[in-house]
């Protein structure tokens, strides 16, 4: 990276604000951490936030590229198409985008990295815990729209619950909104009144749901970043993203002149996904044990989460301990 004193310059375009407690913030935090570690003189980064309008994002990406940043990150799966259109115009710039696995190499593009978060893994682990912690055997999940990172997490969580307790009832409600807290609250309330005693959810509107859970003391699992601060007394654990895990190898590749073509993933195995337990909440031994077990099983490959191609969800299979994806990230 930082050759001849020149700082390594990164620009990132994000769909929501850097303080969204979720997808965008997780990337911002990662970059901040790297800067912390390497020092401002070696590592600069700038961000363009709230770029929910895709053509504005495209403009921003093109602008960053033409301003000669070393790496330009398009942090949103809706940016892929625009990125693929402009990347060829800037062969000396490396691009990264996610969450997706498509590096557009089969379109002859060589300077795009792709990254994704296997959030179904953490979802699965938390689902296992949820199933054990629920007394009513009813568990509620509040989602935005059924797609992308949210879908992976929800499917994973559901799989985890049913894997642990096949008779459990899992209520999934995609409320079709990323921002309507009141609606999220009402959805959660409906679940709670249908005897759910464990809830989880993903995207920016979940604080609405957390509030409802808090009122009746139902348990909550968070994802994307820690929501413990919102409700210390009910948050069991959060699946936290650590994007440094994909950023570091990208930097290395670039140092070796590789400008793209690689796809990375946050996994439990590579530490990109971290189950962050709430220290203030006492958990039964067997629950902790089950959680550790599930993590090990997924890491070692004893358990393989198979994504159904029809989008129907995730099924669990016993696999033999070792997987290719594991190796290369080493």
């Amino acid at each position, binding site marked *: 990276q930082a050759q001849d004193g020149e700082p390594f310059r990164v620009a990132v375009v994000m769909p929501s604000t850097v303080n969204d407690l979720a997808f965008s913030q997780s990337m911002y935090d990662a970059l901040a951490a790297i800067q912390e570690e390497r020092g401002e003189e070696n590592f600069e980064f700038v961000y363009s936030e709230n770029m929910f309008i895709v053509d504005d994002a495209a403009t921003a990406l093109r602008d960053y590229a033409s301003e000669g940043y070393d790496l330009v990150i398009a942090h949103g799966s809706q940016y892929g198409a625009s990125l693929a259109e402009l990347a060829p115009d800037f062969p000396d710039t490396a691009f990264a985008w996610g969450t997706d696995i498509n590096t557009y190499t089969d379109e002859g593009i060589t300077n795009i990295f792709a990254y994704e978060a296997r959030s179904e893994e953490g979802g699965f682990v938390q689902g296992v815990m949820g199933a054990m912690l629920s007394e009513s055997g009813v568990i509620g999940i509040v989602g935005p729209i059924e797609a992308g990172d949210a879908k992976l997490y929800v499917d994973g969580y559901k799989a985890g619950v049913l894997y642990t307790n096949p008779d459990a009832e899992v209520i999934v409600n995609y409320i079709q909104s990323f921002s309507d807290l*009141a609606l999220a609250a009402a959805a959660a309330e409906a679940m709670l009144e249908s005897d759910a005693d464990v809830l989880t959810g993903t995207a920016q*509107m979940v604080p609405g749901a957390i509030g409802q859970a808090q009122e009746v003391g139902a348990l909550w699992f968070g994802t994307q970043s820690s929501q413990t601060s919102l409700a210390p007394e009910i948050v069991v654990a959060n699946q936290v993203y650590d994007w440094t895990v994909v950023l570091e190898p990208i930097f290395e590749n670039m140092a070796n002149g590789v400008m793209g073509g690689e796809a990375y993933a946050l996994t439990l195995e590579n530490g990109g996904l971290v189950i962050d337990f709430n220290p203030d909440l006492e958990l039964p031994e067997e629950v902790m044990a089950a959680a550790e077990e599930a993590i090990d099983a997924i890491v070692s490959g004893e358990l393989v989460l198979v994504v159904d191609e029809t989008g129907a969800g995730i099924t669990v299979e016993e696999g033999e301990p070792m997987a290719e994806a594991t190796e290369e990230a080493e």
Partner: protein
Amino acid sequence: MIGDLLNATVLIGIASSGIQLATPYLYASIGEMFGQRSGVLNLGVEGMMLMGAFTAFYTVHNTGSLVLGVLAALMIGALMGLAMAVISVTLQAEQGISGIGIYLFGLGMSDLLFQKSFSQIVTVRGFPTIRIPLLSEIPVIGEVFFEHNLLVYVAFALVPLAWFVLNKTTLGLKIRAVGQNPQAADTMGISVARVRYFTVTLGGMLASMAGASLSIALLNVFQQNMTAGQGFIAVALVYFGSWRPGGVLIGALLFSTVNALQLWVRTKGIDIPAEYASMAPYLLTILALVFASKRVDQPAALSKPFERGD
């Protein structure tokens, strides 16, 4: 499957969460209704809601006092309302756009202030649920109507109050006259500007309260753009109610209850595409109007600035 919806818990759940969802609409719509009755169309409701939501949240977070929170919200709402009044009444600006300007201002400013004052999302201890003695004991009714937080009760109390003010007081008469024929009102010695300043400021305060009813009562958190377009629905509901408090109440309840219903439908695993379920409240609001026999009496001077001698 549908059968699952026809048990007490579900119906009570739908009704009571319908009432909760209706609360912010009631505040905002009643406020907007006053403005429109006097001839001022304020499309900035959403922005005012967000400012109110933040101010109330911030105050309660720092002082722990709900009273102060409400007062702060009322004050910021009054300021936003005054601003709108200056623009649309004194400066006679095209009301449609000035409203959009106010909206964007509130949308951005609330977020900006939030980022400046909080490093992470936190909750506050908001208005607790008040179970009205005796009344809340009544089976079903009690659970549906008498187990809410204070701001919910206030919102519903506003409806008859607004009706009374509009139809039974001299002030209400002035408001109606100014909205229908400002020239005439002017020649009767009424200050059109003063009346409109009053209604628009009041509208701002109520819109602000709508935000507060979310941030320090229903949800107890603040987040950028947390109102998610409710301010615009509130404006639409004024038209639904054809400028009458009762009509607004019906509209707010219809919209919110259907919304609660569609959430329950999916909670009960009845599988219709989530997207279509979400459409329901919007679709039904329109359909209701199609079949309702309506007495439309739109204020004739709505969104028309008044200047004497024209």
